[in-house]
């Protein structure tokens, strides 16, 4: 018998009687201003959050706060005068020198500050992880309260790769001292647009 068959046989033999899945539709959240909640949560976990009137305001913020001499990439055509529009058909290693990447979130979650990105909006899977700094554009209408609502929206989405990202990379492995910038970005900025 193959390992597969013997494992499956043992699993079947040892299964306890079937129990039901719980109803998880009852996790409600209090009425709240999700946009304010999102901003507070995200800044509370070491993220930088700015309310931007429009794309033009984001461009100005980027010019003032990031080193535009270095490589900036984006998947947003509207940012093409501050960023290179990235290609998904190149080797991931070619993004090693990216200083800043700018991506539009599909969703953002108020309870934990995380944004939901799929590989289509990333341009290339590696981009939001390898960049020295990450910036994400979040439309207010895309902010949900909890992860339950986030998954209700993601429910049937088809993607090869997707991820929640909830701040700059971090570690506290050395004596519990919080250090921002472990292997991923050193900072994460969210631009919230109406």
């Amino acid at each position: 018998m193959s390992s597969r068959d013997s494992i499956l046989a043992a699993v079947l033999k040892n299964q306890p009687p079937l129990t039901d899945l719980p109803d998880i539709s009852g996790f409600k959240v209090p009425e709240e201003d999700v946009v304010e909640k999102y901003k507070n949560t995200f800044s509370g976990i070491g993220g930088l959050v700015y309310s931007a009137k429009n794309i033009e305001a984001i461009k100005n913020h980027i010019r003032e706060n990031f080193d535009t001499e270095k490589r900036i990439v984006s998947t947003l055509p509207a940012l093409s005068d501050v960023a290179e529009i990235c290609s998904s058909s190149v080797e991931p290693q070619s993004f090693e020198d990216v200083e800043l990447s700018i991506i539009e979130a599909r969703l953002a979650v108020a309870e934990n500050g995380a944004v939901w990105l799929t590989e289509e909006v990333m341009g290339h899977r590696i981009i939001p992880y390898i960049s020295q700094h990450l910036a994400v554009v979040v439309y207010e209408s895309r902010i949900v309260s909890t992860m339950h609502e986030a998954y209700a929206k993601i429910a049937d989405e088809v993607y090869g790769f997707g991820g929640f990202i909830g701040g700059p990379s971090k570690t506290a492995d050395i004596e519990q001292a919080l250090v921002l910038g472990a292997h991923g970005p050193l900072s994460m900025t969210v631009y919230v647009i109406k």
Partner: protein
Amino acid sequence: MKGTQDHATLAEVFNRDEDRVDWHDGALWWIRQKRDRSANLTPQWEELREAASAIKSNVISNLHDYLLQFEENLKKNGVKVYWASDAEEHNQIIHKILSDKNINQMVKSKSMLTEECHLNEYLADRGIDVINSDLGEYIQQIDNEPPSHIVLPCIHKKKEEIGELFHEHLGTEKGLSDPTLLTRVARNHLRNVFMTRRAALTGVNFAVAETGEYVVCTNEGNADMGAHLCEVQIASMGLEKIIPERKHLGVFLRLLARSAIGQPITIYSSHFRKPRPGQEMHLILVDKGRS
């Protein structure tokens, strides 16, 4: 490896230094307090835990069918699936995947299962070098010790000791003990590792039967750096990591980081479903006493 001594023996030595024990207790209580604060701030926390427990009970009671469903979906997604009864078989499978591609270096993110299987030693004996990329595990690896804690692998080490290790292994100046500076040194060193490894292995936090995707959670971004830069991506998981549907991730991701370290969510919760074009993705389902 120093870790061949058993826990009781090592604990006895550790406990002789009372100041150090107090310091270590303080570190653990600090984490525990952060967890409690985070739990108290989350509405319906206990209901959430009960729901998670009920989902896991359902998983155990229907694991056979969920495993088949998961396998079928993995295959549809273009992922190669393997089954391993024990550590030896698990390690052999990985060795074969790597040797078929003439790969002799791999980068690994945190995986307690591969610790359980002593994968690194197995591969080292066969000429394959594995680097652990989680900072705490990397520190433990250069000190030739296994992790002492599943979330905080080097919680027992002082920063001065880590500075000494970096001085010895990475050539940093003597006496360096600032956590930020030490982390930067490791970041730069490991970036070069990520850039040059053709194979990367991750653990699995959750495996969704309904979709065939698996989720890997880290704070450092090391799982993603390895996975998205490599041409051969390998994931090892125990059978118990299955959850039935994608929506159940909502329950578990709300609980996981709050319970572990008091964060509202891990920085990275990555959902791997298909290999990227030109990449191979392999997943090994490991029993090792779980069935």
